[in-house]
């Protein structure tokens, strides 16, 4: 019994080997280009023609062509109208409805939860010394304008994007179909019109803030000590600390470029790009935007409730001297050396805006 199975298997193997050795030789003689798997529509067409001469009822090459997504001839005008089956849409659906929504949702729940836990544990980062009452300008009105334009458009895009990805599962059951559809129409149009504004702001943001964000040797020390956020240790930093620089290069610049480029592909279907490119752009856009939103939560936390005095820096453009010395010592020293601020010993009387600042 078993010997017969082995014999059958052997004979099959022999047959396959024989065919494998004969077929390429035969193909080489007749048409050398069939040895490699057909890649273009022309070669497939040739394959069907060849097949039909030897096996008139065999349409296998034709059905491979149907599944390939290569366009045929059609009278209907439009983009990709000649394509019978575009199989990549299935991959897009599986990715979007699967890992992107699942892990993206987890990310947007875990990160705020972790931040809240940290806040409950450490509270707001306060200054160690009392405020001096002397204010230093940290951000010009131009820098603040660009920051808030970018920030507000970011928040609009984040909420409308979240609604497009998760709204069906969270908001729709609450509001019902008609109301949710109206909200989604408003969100979609906000997203599509605010998006290009955000791209524009991101470019301006880069050139406005790039000056202070070049990486310095002391930034490595800051990274190693985690900025002293947990230990409370004093870690000197330049105008922007390493965390802010990471946010600038990784968030604003890298993720900004990725979401902007992929978003523009999706936002302007009038340039006749195909489905395949849009499917890829949509996944890239979603994943990058989810990471961007998660990272922004850290930035927003430290810019508001997480650190005393940080919000007023971007709101009013000024910081207290003590704040500057404690959080951005190298920047403060630099300002002192350039006589932008007077040394603390010469000015001891509090200025008119001497109130302690609460973020």
């Amino acid at each position: 019994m078993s010997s017969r199975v082995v014999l059958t298997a052997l004979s099959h193997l022999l047959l396959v080997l024989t065919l494998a050795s004969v077929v390429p030789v035969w193909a080489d003689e007749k048409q050398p280009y069939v040895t490699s798997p057909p890649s273009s529509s022309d070669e497939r067409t040739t394959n069907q023609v060849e097949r039909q001469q030897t096996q008139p009822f065999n349409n296998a090459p034709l059905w491979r062509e149907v599944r390939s997504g290569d366009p045929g001839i059609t009278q209907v005008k439009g983009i990709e109208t000649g394509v019978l089956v575009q199989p990549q849409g299935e991959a897009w659906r599986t990715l979007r409805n699967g890992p992107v929504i699942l892990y993206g949702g987890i990310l947007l729940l875990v990160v705020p939860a972790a931040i809240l836990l940290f806040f409950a544990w450490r509270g707001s980062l306060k200054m160690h010394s009392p405020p001096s009452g002397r204010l230093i300008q940290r951000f010009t009105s131009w820098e603040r304008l660009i920051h808030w334009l970018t920030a507000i458009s970011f928040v609009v895009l984040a909420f409308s994007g979240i609604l497009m990805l998760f709204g069906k599962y969270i908001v729709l059951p609450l509001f019902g179909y008609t109301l949710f559809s109206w909200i989604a129409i408003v969100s979609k149009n906000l997203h599509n019109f605010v998006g290009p504004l955000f791209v524009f702001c991101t470019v301006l943001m880069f050139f406005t803030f790039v000056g202070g964000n070049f990486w310095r040797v002391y930034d490595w020390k800051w990274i190693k000590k985690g900025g002293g956020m947990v230990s409370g240790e004093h870690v000197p930093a330049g105008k922007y600390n390493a965390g802010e620089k990471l946010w600038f290069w990784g968030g604003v610049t890298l993720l900004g470029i990725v979401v902007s480029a992929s978003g523009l592909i999706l936002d302007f279907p009038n340039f006749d790009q195909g489905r395949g490119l849009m499917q890829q752009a949509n996944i890239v856009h979603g994943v990058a935007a989810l990471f961007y939103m998660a990272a922004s939560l850290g930035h927003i936390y430290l810019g508001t409730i997480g650190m005393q005095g940080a919000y007023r820096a971007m709101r009013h453009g000024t910081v207290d001297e003590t704040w500057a010395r404690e959080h951005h010592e190298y920047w403060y020293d630099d300002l002192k050396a350039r006589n932008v601020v007077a040394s603390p010993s010469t000015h001891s009387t509090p200025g008119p805006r001497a109130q302690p600042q609460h973020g």
Partner: protein
Amino acid sequence: MARMKFLCDAERCIECNGCVTACKNENEVPWGVNRRRVVTLNDGVPGERSMSVACMHCSDAPCMAVCPVDCFYKTAEGVVLHDKDLCIGCGYCFYACPFGAPQFPQDGAFGLRGKMDKCTFCAGGPEANGSEAEFKKYGRNRLSEGKLPACAEMCSTKALLGGDGDVIADIYRTRVTRRGKGSEVWGWGTAYGRPDQQPQTPPQQQPQGGNKS
């Protein structure tokens, strides 16, 4: 209840585009939208085959799965329909569909596409059967009149069959055994290769907060 399907016999289709014209005429579709189209492979050489394509009303329809406002529903006959009042024109159904069935009246900058339009299997939409509002948005509702889709009814060579999946499969099986070739049915694996979704009532007529898959 019958499960409605389309079947295009590639051995019979002669690329006359009668189905395309019948559809446009019957449903008065928006300009620039073709709910049905005929594609020819190996044009002008031996082995040339033509196939008529439209929405296949898939068992596990990708458009339904990705719609962010859940505007699609499946009738008891297995026909995939959508509610244009809910559609936001995001284009996700168009990304997901392997057949290129969902189309938009515009492809404007800033994603201004208008409401999605696609083949309804001549079964209209969520409005009252045969109403003026239904015709304006979705075209004729022939199914409610006991008729089959205009494209299949019009097909001169009976290459395009539309109707109860079991019946048209039987017709096709008879053909294949008679002529002894062309057993492959294009698109059926993609469209009907998975278990059917449960039929639903149109979204807006459902009780609020009801869970849909």
